[in-house]
């Protein structure tokens, strides 16, 4: 059975979220500070409103104050709140905190949950995730060089990381480092929770970057003989890679749906401008070229949307949906960039001024084709998976071209 309609509950959620966006989120965008987001005296009361309306932390289970409604609902909500760069912060569901919350939920001990997950889930603290290192390819985490060495009851971490998003102002960092250099490549690393006030944890600098919507910068970070107790390990020894992957599946759904929100917002900017801009007796919207931009954007947005919701649905059925998740990551990031680019083209140089959100969205959008797996890596994953399926089917002499 195929059914494309939202449940009554989902409809209510979308309406409520839309209302909050219009009343509280969009009007506050003007207070946004580059790399810092909303000042907390503005942010906190807005988060309180979201909590009271029951739309807080869509990615987390009810036990820790989240919504626990599954991936399809999470996707639908992300689409609405993603329309504004501050939306996901107001709704308590933004990378890297969202992914960290998910790992903690799955892998943390009771004590760790108490100490880290609860305040994180509540929005009392922020966190960061330190995997990528400047010296080695982030696309291939088996090459990580940072280490943790056991010393009595403690681990001593030495590592150089960058793109540790949000490190400025974070309470803790989940670090991925090598604990077992001799194990097979996927079992070499483990995760540790490191308090950022640990004297061995150093934020070297905020790396200057193209986009400025993430809160707390994209930082270069060093762990200098950073000592943590044995209890700081998150999950089992050697499970770093596995847990980091676990963080990425749902993260890609929320990213992809958030991007659709951004794309939709850009579409709206484009259409609003095209309809208002007079060209003699006509408007810009009467131009077939502009109409082509609009139609192509809609086609891409719809395709990406259905792809993403289908992946979310599969995940709700307990499927990992690896191929689908790679597809939406690859395709969704491109759609996002295409649509924002077209919107700017319609507005002309005006679209590059700070008078509209487009230039900021354009700069931020470019990262989507890199983080959580670069285009080229996802293309490879999708193709390999399809070839594998094809080969298996050919063996059975089935019609190979149709994959479900």
């Amino acid at each position, binding site marked *: 059975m195929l059914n494309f309609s939202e449940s009554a509950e989902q409809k209510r959620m979308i309406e409520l979220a839309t209302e909050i966006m219009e009343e509280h989120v969009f009007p506050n965008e003007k207070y946004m500070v580059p790399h810092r987001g909303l000042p907390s005296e503005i942010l906190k009361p807005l988060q309180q409103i979201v909590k009271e309306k029951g739309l807080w932390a869509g990615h987390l289970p009810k036990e820790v104050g989240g919504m626990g409604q599954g991936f399809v609902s999470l996707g639908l909500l992300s689409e609405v709140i993603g329309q504004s760069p501050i939306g996901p912060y107001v709704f308590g569901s933004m990378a890297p905190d969202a992914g960290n919350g998910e790992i903690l939920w799955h892998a943390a001990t009771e004590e760790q949950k108490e100490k880290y997950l609860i305040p994180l889930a509540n929005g009392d603290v922020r966190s960061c995730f330190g995997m990528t290192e400047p010296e080695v390819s982030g696309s291939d985490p088996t090459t990580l060089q940072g280490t943790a060495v056991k010393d009595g009851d403690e681990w001593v971490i030495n590592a150089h990381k960058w793109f540790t998003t949000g490190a400025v102002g974070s309470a803790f960092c989940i670090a991925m480092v090598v604990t077992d250099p001799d194990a097979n490549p996927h079992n070499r690393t483990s995760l540790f929770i490191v308090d950022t006030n640990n004297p061995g944890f150093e934020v070297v600098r905020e*790396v200057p*970057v193209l986009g400025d919507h993430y809160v707390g910068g994209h930082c270069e970070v060093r762990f200098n003989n950073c000592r943590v107790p044995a209890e700081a390990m998150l999950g089992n020894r050697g499970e770093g890679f596995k847990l980091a992957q676990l963080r990425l599946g749902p993260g890609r759904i929320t990213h992809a749906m958030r991007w659709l929100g951004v794309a939709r917002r850009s579409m709206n900017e484009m259409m609003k401008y095209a309809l208002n801009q007079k060209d003699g007796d006509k408007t810009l919207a009467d131009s077939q070229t502009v109409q082509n931009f609009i139609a192509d954007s809609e086609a891409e947005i719809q395709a990406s949307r259905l792809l993403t919701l289908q992946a979310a649905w599969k995940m709700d059925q307990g499927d990992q949906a690896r191929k689908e998740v790679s597809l939406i990551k690859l395709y969704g990031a491109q759609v996002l960039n295409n649509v924002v680019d077209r919107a700017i083209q319609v507005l002309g140089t005006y679209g590059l001024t700070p008078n509209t959100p487009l230039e900021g969205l354009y*700069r931020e959008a470019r990262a989507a084709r890199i983080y959580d797996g670069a285009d080229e890596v996802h293309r490879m994953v999708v193709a390999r998976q399809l070839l594998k399926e094809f080969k298996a089917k050919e063996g059975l002499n089935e019609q190979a071209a149709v994959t479900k």
Partner: protein
Amino acid sequence: MEEVLVDKELTILKKTVRSFVRDKVERAELLQKEHITELSKDVADTLKETAQKTGLQAMGAKKEWGGAGLSLSCRTVLYEEAAQHRLGLFHPAGDAFGEELPRFLENCTKEQINTYVKPAIQQGKGCFVALWEEHEDNDIGKLTCQAVKDGNSWIINGHKAYIDKFQEAGFGVILVNCLGESGEKQPTLFILEHNDSFENKETVLIDVQKVNSLSFNGMKISDDRRIGNIGDGAELMKEWITEAQVLLASRCLGVAVKALDYAKSYAKIRITRGQPLSDFPSIRTMIASGYVNLQAARLMVQDAAKKIDERAKDAATAAGMAKVFTTDTASKIIDDCLQIHGGAGFAGDLPIERWYKELRIARMNLQKKENIIEHIANLNL
């Protein structure tokens, strides 16, 4: 007469520009420790002095004005070199060679030349162009800024936007519609001075380029500031746009060359899954296609420059074609280069993210694709 250099002379000049950019400009950029968005005034001034000593100054301006009087064909070759550094797309050679002056200044009176043009050239300064308006940045026919005659003066009302290098310029030129007796629009050029009584606001395009907008509320300007005849302004501006498109395109070639250099070097040293990126067909294709398109773009730029130098009938069309193709090509090369660098491409330690923003401006500058395409359609249909 413009100087037509023989190949050998041009080759020597090109080498001079190249070593100036590598040894002086790039070094100056590297020496500034923080994330660099502009050269400090001291550094810029020193570069200018050094350039003057080598005779690399006001390359396009007429010899009798104190310029080098080089043909556009020569200048495109030199600007491709001059743009090959971080700030190079909009500040070729760190602006050390002075600014290109619009050709319409040839219509200035002797007095205007002596008062405005020659001093600007001497100081290595340019001329800002107040052409577009906030919501009209492509069609000269749709501009609204107006002037009405008042004795020996004109009263200007209206608004101009997206003026690049406003502060740095020695003077400016504005296009306004002078209203004729029966209210007909007669586009005309006037010289502006910085202390004329307009309001001036600075804004930043896509976090990288400072531009100014000017508001005119009944500003009075004397008729002796007029350049050329009343009603000639649009044609004169179009000539400028034609030439400026080719100059912009030549600088885009320069940053694209540089981006490909970055991409190549990085692809060879960055290892993933046991292989350098340069072994992966996805990456090889990006780089190789970059070279293919870059060469096509370069030929189009040269073709357009030659046609402009020869004042050929189809010069404007050739310039538009070169502009579209080159800005699109450079955008794609820089986008790929950013992709190849992964996170490092998104970071400002390298110049790639700056070029990414600047190319988005370049695609919009002067004439955007849709207008050029429409023009070509009109010609052929």
